[in-house]
């Protein structure tokens, strides 16, 4: 600022300060109108700036910067959970305002990280972020966040449940999904069908023995009576399913060799199968010679699950 201009500004300021009627004059000599006009113009410029920001970013909810969560956690000064809530709201608004298919939510991981770094016990944040990331097609990130949640909140059954769904549905790793489902089924508050679903996954993956071992391990632990009954039932189902699969394998071998199904199970004449069929479960096996299929009244529905990889491409969802 030039000295002359500075001097003029200063004298103007002094004259305003010294004059007791300044405020009165401001109100009545038209200055109020000018001030309001300037404020209105400023507001208009602000609105224009905001709308141009929305246009350039594609959304008004895009966060401008993702600050280091550890720093903001320190600055929360004992109100970490409240700060995490505000970060959570930021994430929700971001997700709500952006189309997942178009944007793939590129900042989702960073925003979720902010929430869970400030409040590592925020169970719903792990859960919802995991589901959203899976929806955005980033299954690895989804599993990473869900597994981290399981470390911090091992008692929340929803976290292993959603991770299991990812492994099953998106990654076709039924064994891993079954392990996680079994883990979820043992947690308080989990729905009773989880144990059943876990056994189906084990069955479909072909790792019945692994499933049985895990169930035996679970049953060796102290459990609530209802859960124990449920897991014992699932073990029973897996044992029946194992016998059915073993019998089916022998029938397949017979078919391959003779190019027709056997007329009865006795026709198979296999010592190993005879031993299996002489067991308590084996005696319940019923053979349908017309279809060449086996069943057991102990297991009205076979333990198989839908596998996305088994669906023909023409029938698969777009």
């Amino acid at each position, binding site marked *: 600022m030039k000295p002359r201009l500075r001097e003029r500004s200063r004298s103007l300021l002094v004259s305003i300060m010294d004059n007791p009627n300044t405020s009165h004059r401001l109100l009545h000599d038209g200055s109020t109108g000018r001030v309001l006009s300037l404020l209105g113009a400023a507001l208009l410029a602000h609105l224009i700036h905001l709308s141009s920001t929305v246009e350039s970013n594609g959304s008004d909810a895009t966060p401008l910067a993702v600050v280091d969560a550890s720093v903001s956690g320190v600055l929360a000064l004992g*109100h970490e*959970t409240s700060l995490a*809530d505000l970060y959570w709201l930021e994430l929700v608004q971001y997700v709500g305002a952006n189309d997942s298919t178009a944007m793939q939510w590129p900042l989702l991981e960073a925003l979720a990280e902010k929430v869970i770094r400030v409040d590592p016990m925020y169970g719903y944040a792990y859960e919802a972020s995991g589901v959203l990331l899976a929806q955005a097609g980033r299954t690895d990130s989804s599993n990473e966040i869900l597994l981290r949640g399981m470390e911090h909140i091992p008692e929340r059954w929803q976290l292993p449940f959603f991770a299991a769904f990812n492994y099953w549905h998106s990654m076709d790793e039924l064994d891993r999904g079954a392990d996680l489902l079994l883990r979820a089924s043992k947690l308080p508050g989990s729905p009773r069908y989880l144990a059943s679903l876990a056994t189906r996954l084990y069955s479909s993956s072909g790792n019945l023995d692994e499933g049985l071992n895990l169930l035996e391990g679970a049953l060796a632990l102290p459990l609530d009576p209802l859960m124990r009954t449920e897991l014992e039932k699932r073990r029973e189902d897996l044992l029946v399913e194992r016998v059915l699969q073993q019998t089916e394998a022998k029938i397949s071998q017979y078919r391959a060799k003779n190019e027709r199904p056997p007329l009865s199970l006795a026709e198979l004449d296999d010592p190993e199968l005879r031993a299996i069929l002489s067991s308590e479960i084996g005696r319940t096996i019923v053979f349908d010679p017309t279809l060449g299929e086996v069943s057991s009244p102990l297991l009205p529905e076979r333990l198989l699950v839908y596998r996305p990889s088994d669906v023909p491409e023409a029938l698969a969802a777009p």
Partner: protein
Amino acid sequence: MTQLRILLAIARVTIHESLRDRILYGVLAFGIGLILLSAVLSNVTLGWPVRIVTDLSISAISISGSVMALLLGVRSVAGEIERRLAYPVLARPISRGQYVLGKFVGVVGTVYLNVLLMAVAATAMIASYSHEGAFQYTVTAYLTTLALLLLKLALIAAIAVLFSCFTSSTVAFIASTGLTLAGHLTGELRFFLGKSESALTRAIGDGLYWTLPDFVTLEALSKLVHEKEILTSQTLAAVAYGSCYLAALLILATTIFERRDLP
């Protein structure tokens, strides 16, 4: 008995004076505004609105209460001396210790009255957002959280009164605000100073951790919103810690004020 009556008389006058303070109503309005805002914010969340309402409401009480305790605490003694209102009182047969304690009780009483108003609003809000009509949390857990918060506010008021006993109100405000902030960061201070290669720095970190008031100890909100059990043993330990620290601060404040040469 007479001594207690004197103390309570000073406290009563302090409450009356504080309630005339307009800034108090500004802070109260801020607190209640934040509680109401929590209801608005909970409507734009996903999943669990009662958590947002609880978090923001209790934090609003905590922040507003802390600001009130600091503002009223620093003006309680220093402000009275600066305005020369303390001298006629001290000229009477009242000990300086009684005066300081009376001022402290008055400040805490005023803060608690305001906290009560905010707590009623917060509780109503939480109840209205709880599932299926039942209150979201157990009464014990909720009341424990509020009780520990009250103790924390008393501790902040004691810090403010302590500084107010030997400095001007402005300096007391800066110092007690700094100490209150540091009291929320003792763990972080120890962690970061503990990273130093210098043994002296690490020792300073440890020293600060053990000597500064640790307000995180008096914090149960995170357990409340995560619906974790608030253990009785932990609560009792926290109450013992807060009470002992509070008593120490008040004794220090009265001792300093008794030995001080008033201008």
